[in-house]
C-alpha cells in the first residue's frame, strides 16, 4: 500500500484540473461574444441555475486543487513537524473559509 500512498492526491489534482480547464474555456468563449456588460446582465447571468451550479463546482474543484498543490509545496519545503502541521492546518482553514464565503455569495444572489 505504501507505493499507492501518493496516487489519490495525484489523481484528484488531475481530475480537478480538467474541470477547471473546461470551465475556463466555457467562460472565455461565452464572454468573448458579449461586448456590453452591465450590472443587471452580469447578475442575471451568474444567478441562473446552471451558472450557479457550474460556479459552485468551479470553486469546489479549485479549493481541492489548491489544497493538493499547496500541501505538496509545504511538504517539500517545510521540514519542522510542528510548523508544517500548523501551516497545513491554516491552509485548510483558509480554503474551507473561502468555500463558506462562496456559499454566502450564492445565497446573496438568490435573495
Amino acid at each position, binding site marked *: 500500500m*505504501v507505493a499507492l500512498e501518493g496516487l489519490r492526491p495525484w489523481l484528484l489534482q*488531475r481530475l480537478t*484540473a*480538467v474541470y477547471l*480547464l473546461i470551465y*475556463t474555456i466555457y467562460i472565455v468563449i461565452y464572454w468573448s461574444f458579449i461586448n456590453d456588460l452591465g*450590472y*443587471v446582465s*452580469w*447578475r442575471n447571468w*451568474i*444567478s441562473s441555475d446552471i451558472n450557479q451550479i457550474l460556479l459552485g463546482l468551479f470553486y469546489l474543484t*479549485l*479549493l481541492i486543487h*489548491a489544497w493538493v*498543490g*499547496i500541501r505538496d*509545496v509545504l*511538504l*517539500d519545503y517545510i521540514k519542522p513537524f510542528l510548523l508544517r502541521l500548523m501551516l497545513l492546518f491554516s491552509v485548510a482553514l*483558509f*480554503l474551507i473559509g*473561502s468555500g463558506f*464565503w*462562496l456559499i*454566502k*455569495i450564492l445565497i*446573496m*444572489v438568490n435573495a
Partner: protein
Amino acid sequence: MSSTSRPVYLNLIKIKLPISGIISIFHRLSGVLLFLAIPFSLYLLQLSLKDIASYESVTSLMLKPVSRFFILLVIWSFIHHLLTGVRFLLIDLDLFLEKQSVRSSAWGVVVVEVVIMSFIIVGIFL
C-alpha cells in the same frame, strides 16, 4: 522511513535548469500566487453582485494602475499555470516524452504564453 529517504531538498541556485525545469518552477510559483488570489476573487465577485453601486466601484477599481498591475500578475499566473498544467497532463498521457519534444513543448508553452500576454496587455492598456 521511506518518506525521509526520498530526495526532498534541491538547491535550486546550484542547478542549471533546462527550459522545462524553469517553466515547472514557475508552475509552482504561479500556483501559490493563484492560491493567494482566491479571497480577492471572492471579494470582487461579492462586490460586483451586491448592488449597482458596488458593481461600479469594482469597475473603477480595475481601472487604477496599481490594480491593473495585480490583475496582470494574476492573469499571467493563470495562463502560465494553465498552459504548463495542460503540458503536464499531456505528458501523463505519455505524449512529449522524447528528450527533443520535452524541450520543444516547453518552448511552445513559452511562445503561446508571450502571444496571449501581448494581446492582453494591448487590450488593457490601449
